[in-house]
């Protein structure tokens, strides 16, 4: 059989970054091909080249044996290459039928008028054929669950008769039941000789669903193999480039006294009955699907949101944080999940960012800034944490994601935090930066700090956390010790549903 999509010696360079180096992959019709790699490995860049968002700096893309050059994504789509992103491209205010036929609406006599009856009928027929029973053609997209919206996106690509479907982290918001329904659809596509490129971090799913896998690391292809010929450990090792246990910089921790205790924390419509304790010297993990409510819990503990009920104790004493300022005064720090939106002042310098919460504690008389102290502490921290930057006066937007994240960590170390809440701390940073970050986290708890880490990456959770608390739809569904935790047991706790 001939491959229908080929990347041939693809290079992609951006100013200062060689994102892809000599990547060549063949994709065959009717296969589910896993694309693996850490954040920053080059998966998104490769996908964008295959789907027409970027053009390669060097190398070619062959589709059905012919060289293709897409200048806009629309061209790739017309050719038959479709992408279903992690953030779904659904128009919330349109119906299911309108979404599926977006850009290809059936017209009355090919005139300007929309043939709504035909559109709805065709959509319903398609849904029936795909055996999707819980969605109607006339449903409003906004009223659907994430899983249902994903079905709509798949129906859209089936309707377009796509020959290649690229799916980016399709199961990150799905329950186990919904994942099964998704895999049934993928089987149908496979039977129709559609090529599926499947991007995911979930080993269990990859081993269940995929035929072959390609691993990227630091912009290069490390291996392509048949799934049945490899083990999970081999794949993870090739993703990180070294033995996994060194990667996570795992060290033994002996938990000490109680640092943070939460009792019965509730916030209407967001979470309820959250109770846990975190100790000095440990990393407590919080796992859950998107929408489970972890970020909301953490922001409430930090004082950025106000709880409706419940108590919080820091080092044994009850606290009532009315704003982040109170939390900071009690030596709690929060590293948010979206550093560009809520973690950094992008237009400001590294120095200004790193000292921001500490200014009220280090200034001269009458409120004048102590710029000497600022530059001294910024330089010291930048050295200690090995932040790669031309200078401390560099605009922070110009640093890489990994270095930006280190700056944010340094910010809280300067503010003397003893309890650090980290929300998705290694999202969007490359393999080496991640490993360094894990080492810094371990240093912090070794010196008596306490970390509460929210993460959606299972390998990271399993590799780093001493204990794992799982949240599901706003409540705690269970707690597992790091030693006993398995990928399966955690996913089960995160996605068991009482009804669909």
């Amino acid at each position, binding site marked *: 059989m001939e491959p229908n999509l080929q990347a041939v010696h693809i290079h992609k360079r951006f100013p200062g970054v060689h994102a892809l180096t000599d990547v060549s992959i063949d994709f065959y019709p009717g296969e589910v091909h896993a694309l693996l790699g850490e954040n920053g490995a080059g998966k998104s860049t490769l996908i964008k080249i295959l789907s027409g968002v970027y053009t390669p700096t060097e190398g070619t893309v062959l589709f059905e044996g012919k060289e293709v050059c897409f200048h806009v994504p629309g061209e790739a789509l017309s050719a038959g290459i479709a992408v279903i992103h992690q953030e779904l491209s659904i128009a919330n205010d349109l119906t299911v039928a309108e979404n599926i036929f977006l850009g290809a609406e059936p017209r009355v006599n090919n005139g300007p008028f929309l043939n709504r009856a035909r559109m709805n009928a065709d959509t319903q027929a398609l849904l029936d054929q795909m055996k999707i029973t819980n969605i109607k053609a006339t449903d409003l997209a906004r009223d659907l669950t994430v899983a249902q919206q994903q079905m709509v996106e798949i129906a859209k690509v089936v309707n377009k008769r796509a020959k290649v479907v690229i799916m980016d982290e399709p199961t990150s918001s799905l329950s186990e039941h919904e994942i099964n329904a998704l895999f049934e659809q993928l089987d149908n596509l496979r039977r129709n000789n559609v090529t599926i490129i499947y991007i995911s971090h979930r080993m269990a799913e990859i081993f269940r669903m995929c035929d072959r896998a390609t691993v990227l690391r630091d912009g290069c292809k490390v291996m392509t193999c048949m799934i049945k010929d490899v083990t999970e450990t081999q794949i993870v090792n090739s993703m990180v480039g070294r033995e996994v246990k060194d990667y996570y910089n795992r060290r033994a921790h002996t938990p000490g006294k109680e640092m943070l205790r939460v009792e019965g924390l509730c916030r209407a419509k967001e979470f309820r009955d959250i109770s846990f304790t975190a100790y000095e010297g440990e990393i407590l993990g919080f796992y859950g699907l998107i929408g489970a409510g972890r970020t909301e819990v953490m922001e409430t503990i930090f004082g950025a949101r106000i709880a409706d009920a419940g108590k919080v104790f820091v080092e044994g004493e009850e606290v009532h944080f009315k704003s982040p300022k109170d939390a900071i005064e009690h030596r709690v720090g929060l590293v948010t999940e979206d550093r560009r939106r*809520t973690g950094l002042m*992008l237009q400001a310098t590294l120095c200004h960012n790193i000292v*921001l919460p500490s200014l009220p504690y280090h200034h001269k008389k009458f409120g004048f800034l102590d710029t000497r102290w600022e530059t001294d502490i910024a330089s010291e921290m930048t050295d200690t944490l090995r932040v790669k930057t031309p200078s401390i006066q560099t605009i922070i937007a110009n640093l890489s994601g990994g270095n930006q994240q280190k700056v944010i960590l340094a910010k809280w170390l300067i503010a003397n935090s003893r309890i650090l809440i980290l929300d998705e701390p290694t999202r969007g940073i490359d393999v080496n930066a991640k490993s360094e970050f894990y080492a810094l986290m371990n240093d912090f708890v070794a010196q008596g700090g306490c970390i509460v880490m929210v993460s959606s990456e299972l390998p990271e959770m399993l590799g780093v956390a001493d204990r794992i608390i799982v949240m599901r739809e706003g409540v705690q569904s269970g707690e597992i010790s790091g030693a006993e935790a398995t990928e399966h047991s955690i996913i089960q706790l995160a996605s068991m549903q009482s009804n669909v």
Partner: protein
Amino acid sequence: MEKVKSFATKNIIVIVLIVLCLAFGLGSKAFISAQNIVNLTTQMAINAMLSAGLTFVIILGGIDISVGSVAALAGVTGALIARANPEASVFTASLIWVGAALVVGLLCGAFNGLMIAKFKVVPMIATLAMLNIGRGLCFVLSGGSSVSGVKSAYSFLGAARLLKTVDKPTGWIPIITIFVIIVVFIMHTLLSKTVFGRHVYATGSNTHVAHLSGINTGRTIFLGHVICAVMAALGGVLNASKLQNGQPGACDGYEMYAIAATVLGGTSLSGGRGSVGRAMIGVAVIAVINNGMNLMHINSYWQKVVIGAIILMAVILDMAQKRRKA
């Protein structure tokens, strides 16, 4: 050469100012004279006060279009008090002007700040309301006509000059210029060298981050608007002092020149960047254009067109430079 080019792109408006001065200097002999330069400073005075205060608000990511009305209101209020106290000495008179400005500025600024920081009214709308309320109050308080009968002691701040010489018996150094330089310097120091100033930049750069870093963003925004209104009010009393009366229609449209000066100086309307010093460059550019065109007898109607064009050019160059960096 690289360094010169880099300096040039970051300071386009300084180059523009130099070019304009050269052009007008060649176009009119009177432009470069010492007398004209002194006059320029008095022409810049009111806008400098308004623009310096507005810089705080714009760096915070907001806007205040009521500064012209607040200035007029302060002038009218001060003039009414002045009229009622004809026996005041120069010192007392000046104190009355400043006092009136502080009260009017505080009240108006607090109103704006409350609407914007607490009730989350869009800044453009909240200050639009203040613009109308302030202007209306001017006419209410003054009864519709100019508040005159202000004794000459009250003209010290706005019109008096020091250093009388034979050449110029009225004096060389205007008090208004000294006053403005001192106040603007204080504002510049407040913004660039204090913790509060750093909080202003942080709140304007990213309100979420500022809040999560322990900054009371609501209070910072409130204080920013108070500062802006107080500066506008001070500008208004300087104007009333200069004219020795309080006109209800004074400073009409001054908000536009103040915003133009701030933006020309390099303060981005989206917030997070800028400085008082750079706003003063913008003030200088506008004053030079008006002054130079007058001296060259160019139709004054064209002045607004020219200023509009220069603002557009400065903003486009600024955006292009940002895009190149990104």
